[in-house]
Structure formats: structure tokens, C-alpha cells
């Protein structure tokens, strides 16, 4: 039995600390939404009020129906890119992670070391050579090129996380399936993947969020405004001749909301997945 002593002082302290920290964590998100739903004149006052006097949806409507910055199209592009990245990275990553966790192959050590090694390299400078590779593969200005780039940049951590998760599963089930005549692929798809669902949910959530939020690579690889994703489309509101802040923050809010929802829906898998996965190295 767990011994729990509860002092009122301790719980008051807990409540105060949690409240202050929640304020710190959430205020910027609140402020983003608040700026988006406030009429421009009021939002850009030298005496900003915590709560808006007037609420309006006109900024959001203007952003969604803007003729110059096609929001729905860019939203669709972001969705295609993030979802395809997630699927690709899970299928490829789970296979690689399973080989690493349970099978033997030549160069295994080198392979697992290079997975760690690659993550040490500053992303900023990979962008130039990546651009050159993509030009040679004729994959600039293509959503597929972007999906490929995101999938590979997410692969090392996904492989690492899933490898840890697979290692935490009991090996007896696999042995039993093999004795029953299952191939390695059968074992992977019928036994391992269903058992590893929480770990896969964690990896998939993180890959989705990374794919949705990425900025640098998308900025370099995509030029065509009809192929832009939200993160880049957003910057159209920043202009040499002056920034349209209402438009910028409204689009930022519409870009952020879906990913925050996904993250909150799946957050318990992230905790679980990291417990078994990344942590167990």
C-alpha cells in the first residue's frame, strides 16, 4: 500500500505553482487567439486590454477567403504533406526499427551509430546540399519532394523510438508465430505492429506535428504559390511595405489550432511511447 500524507500547505503550494506555470505555458497561445478575434484597430492599440471589447470573425473570414493567399489550398497541401510523411515514416521506420531490434545484419552497429550521428548535424546547413540533391532529382516545387525530405529528417528518431518500443515487447510471441510458419513480415505486421500500437501512435503524432510545423526546408524547396504549405503561406502577410498583423495572426491561429488538437488528443501515447521507447536506449 502506498503511504500518502497530504498537508494542506503542500497542496496550496502545488496549486499556486501549477497556476503560475499554466499561465506561462498558455498565455502566448491565448494571446494569439485573442489577437486573431479582435478587430484590427483594437488589437493594435498602445493600451492593449487583456480581454477584447469586441469579438469579430472578420479577420478569420478574410484570411480563409483571401484571393491572393489561397488558404484552403495551402491547408490541403499541409494536410497532404503531414499525413503522407507520417505514413511513409511509420512504414519505413517500423521496418528498419524491427530489423534493428530483432534481426541480425551486416553493418548493424554502423547503421545504429549513424542514426545517432546524423541528428548531431545542424539542420541549417543541410538545407543547401539538400536543395542541390532535390534539384538533381527534379523534386523541387513538388509536394512529393517535401514529403521525402520530411520523412527522412524524421526517420532517425522514429527508428530509434520504435526500436526501443519493440525491444520492450516479449519475444516469446514472435517465436511462437515463427514456429507456426509465419514469415518475418507476417511476424512484423500481424504480431509486432498491433502490439506496438501505442509506440506507433507516439511516433506518428510527433512526425505529423513536425511535418505540419516545418518551415526552413519548405521555404527552400517550394516556390510555386499554389504548392505552398501553411507555414510558408503565412509569411505572405509579412511584406516589405508593412505587415498585415491581423491577417498574419489569424492565419497563424488557423495553422496552429489543428496541430494543437492532434497533440492534445494523442498526448497520453506520447508519454507512453517515450517511456518505453526513447528513454530505453
Amino acid at each position, binding site marked *: 500500500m502506498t503511504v500518502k500524507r497530504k498537508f494542506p500547505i503542500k497542496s496550496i503550494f502545488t496549486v499556486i505553482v501549477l497556476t503560475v506555470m499554466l499561465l506561462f505555458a498558455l498565455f502566448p497561445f491565448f494571446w494569439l487567439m485573442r489577437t486573431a478575434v479582435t478587430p484590427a484597430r483594437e488589437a493594435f492599440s498602445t493600451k492593449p486590454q487583456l480581454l477584447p471589447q469586441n469579438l469579430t470573425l472578420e479577420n478569420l473570414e478574410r484570411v480563409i477567403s483571401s484571393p491572393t493567399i489561397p488558404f484552403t489550398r495551402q491547408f490541403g497541401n499541409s494536410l497532404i504533406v503531414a499525413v503522407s510523411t507520417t505514413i511513409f515514416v511509420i512504414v519505413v521506420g517500423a521496418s528498419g526499427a524491427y530489423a534493428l531490434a530483432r534481426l541480425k545484419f551486416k553493418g548493424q552497429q554502423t547503421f545504429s551509430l549513424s542514426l545517432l550521428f546524423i541528428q548531431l548535424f545542424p539542420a541549417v546547413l543541410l538545407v543547401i546540399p539538400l536543395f542541390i540533391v532535390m534539384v538533381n532529382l527534379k523534386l523541387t516545387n513538388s509536394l512529393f519532394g517535401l514529403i521525402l525530405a520530411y520523412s527522412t529528417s524524421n526517420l532517425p528518431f522514429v527508428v530509434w523510438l520504435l526500436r526501443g518500443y519493440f525491444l520492450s515487447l516479449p519475444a516469446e510471441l514472435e517465436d511462437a508465430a515463427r514456429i507456426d510458419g509465419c514469415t518475418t513480415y507476417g511476424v512484423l505486421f500481424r504480431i509486432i505492429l498491433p502490439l506496438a500500437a501505442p509506440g506507433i501512435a507516439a511516433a506518428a503524432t510527433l512526425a505529423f506535428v513536425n511535418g505540419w510545423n516545418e*518551415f526552413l526546408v519548405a521555404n527552400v524547396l517550394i516556390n510555386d504559390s499554389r504548392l505552398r504549405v501553411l507555414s510558408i503561406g503565412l509569411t505572405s502577410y509579412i511584406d516589405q511595405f508593412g505587415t498585415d498583423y491581423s491577417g498574419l495572426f489569424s492565419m497563424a491561429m488557423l495553422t496552429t489550432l489543428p496541430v494543437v488538437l492532434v497533440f492534445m488528443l494523442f498526448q497520453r501515447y506520447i508519454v507512453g511511447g517515450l517511456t518505453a521507447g526513447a528513454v530505453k536506449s
Partner: protein
Amino acid sequence: MNKPIASMNPHDTPAVSNPIMRFLDRHAAYVLVLPTVVAIVLINLYPLLYAAVLSFQEAKLGTAAPIFIGLDNYRRLMADPEIWNAIRITLIFTLFSVVGSVLIGLGLALLLNSGFRGRGIVRSLFIIPWAIPAFVAALIWAWMFNDQFGIINAGLKQLGIARPPIWLDRNNAIWSLILVMIWKSFPFQLVVMLAGLQSIPAEMYDAAAVDGANSRQAFWSITLPLLRPVAMVSILLASINAFHYFPIPWILTGGGPSKATNVLAIEAYTVAFNAGDMGYGAAGAMLMFFFIMIGALVYVRLYINEMRTYEK
């Protein structure tokens, strides 16, 4: 009826009739690992080597073919005061943002682990900063820090502070940047630390309580030592991430004012893209890479030693 046992050794190839399938199954490890290897070699390793080669060349954007110049770029780096300034700023940024986010993450994890009603909701609210895109986060904070229209200074004035700080000026910008980085990265620490805390078996605390240990003693002799391996991994990951972090500094301060927040990532990026000096920029990136490697190697060493002392 029981199926016949095809093979007693689970790693032998089971009987499959189709020869192609049999081949694929025998070499399953290679088949499974191939896509990952191809993707990583093509999109990660090749550009990495390319950048390494570039660092030994004089390669300027828009000019003729690059020329091999040996270590010249590296000599220039060593003599460049901007680089030393950038290293100093990067170290300050990394140290304080990692310490800040680890302390906050650990503290909140301990509070959330103690168990109270509504803890699941509180936890999911805390990880919101992690989900917000970095460039959006930087835009919001810049907007909040604004000295004319910003909510932070408006609030401070309401509280009676007549001259609130200018958050993004030369002296304060680096600390404002660190604050934003802590805000963005503490949820990861919180989640990992919470995962670590939850993997400590409750029996250990029960046993300690039976032996008459109070909660403070239990914290120092059970919680912290058992959390240490998890914490070391997450601190390493956070340090690597902060050391070459780009988007928030780039959008929030752009390295300024007067280079007061010019971290190495920004220095390398501006040299490569704005000045078009790809070779020199690549050398700067390689320098960052070496720093991170040294840190990582020292760390792995410590980690292995630690594991050995546990085993003894």
C-alpha cells in the same frame, strides 16, 4: 488439429513454397532495413558529406566552379571575432535554456506525478507550447515583447512600473530569447521526466516508508538516482537541440541587435545565404558539428561509466 512444427529454431526460415518469397524471407533483415538506409544515405548522409567537402572549398553563390583551398576556411574561422562571439552566445543560450527547461520540466513532473484530480487535463495543457510551430511561437512572443503595443509591458505599467524593460534591446534580448526557448522546450522535459518517474516501481517507496524514510529522503535516495539515466538522455538531447537551434532566434531577433543574439546557427546561415559564401558557412557548420560531437562523446563516456558502476 495441431499444425506440424516447421522448425524448432525460431530464426530458421519457415517453409514457404514460393521461391521469391523464400528468398525475401531469408534476407528479411536487409529487405526491411533497405528503405531506411537508402533514404538516409540520399537525403541525410550525402548532403552531410557535401557540406563537409564544401568547407574545404572557396564556394561562392553565383560564381564559377568552387576551388579547393584546404584548411583556409578553418584558419579564417579561428581568427574571426564574430565566430568567437557567436560561440560565447551559443554557449550561454544553450546552458541557460537547458537548465531552465530541465528544472521546470522536472519540478512540474514531480508535482504532476503526485496524483490529483484533473491531472490528465493539466498535463495536456502543459504540452501546448511543444505543439505550436516554432516560427508562430517566435511571432507571438515578438508581438508580446513589443515595447509599444506589447501586452507584457502594458501589464507591467498597470502594475505601476513606469519604465518597464525593453525586452529585445541589446542587453535584454539574449535573456528574452532564452525565456522563449525555455517556454518552447520545457514540455519535452516534462513528458520525458514524467515517463521516467512513472517507471520507478511504487514498491521502492513503500519499502522506504516501512524503513522509516521520510519523503525528502525518498526523493534523494530513490527518485533522483533512478531518474538519472532518463534525465541524462533528455538533457543531452535538449543540449544538442539548443546548440544548433535556428527558427526562434532567427524570427525573434535575427541575431541582433548589434549581434547580441548572434548564435552560431544564425552566423553560419547568414554567411552562407546572405553573404553567399557557402564554403565559409559550411566550415562554420562543421565547427558546430565538432563541438556537438565532443560534447556527445564526453557524455556517452560518462553514461557508460555510470552504467558500469550500477552493475558492480
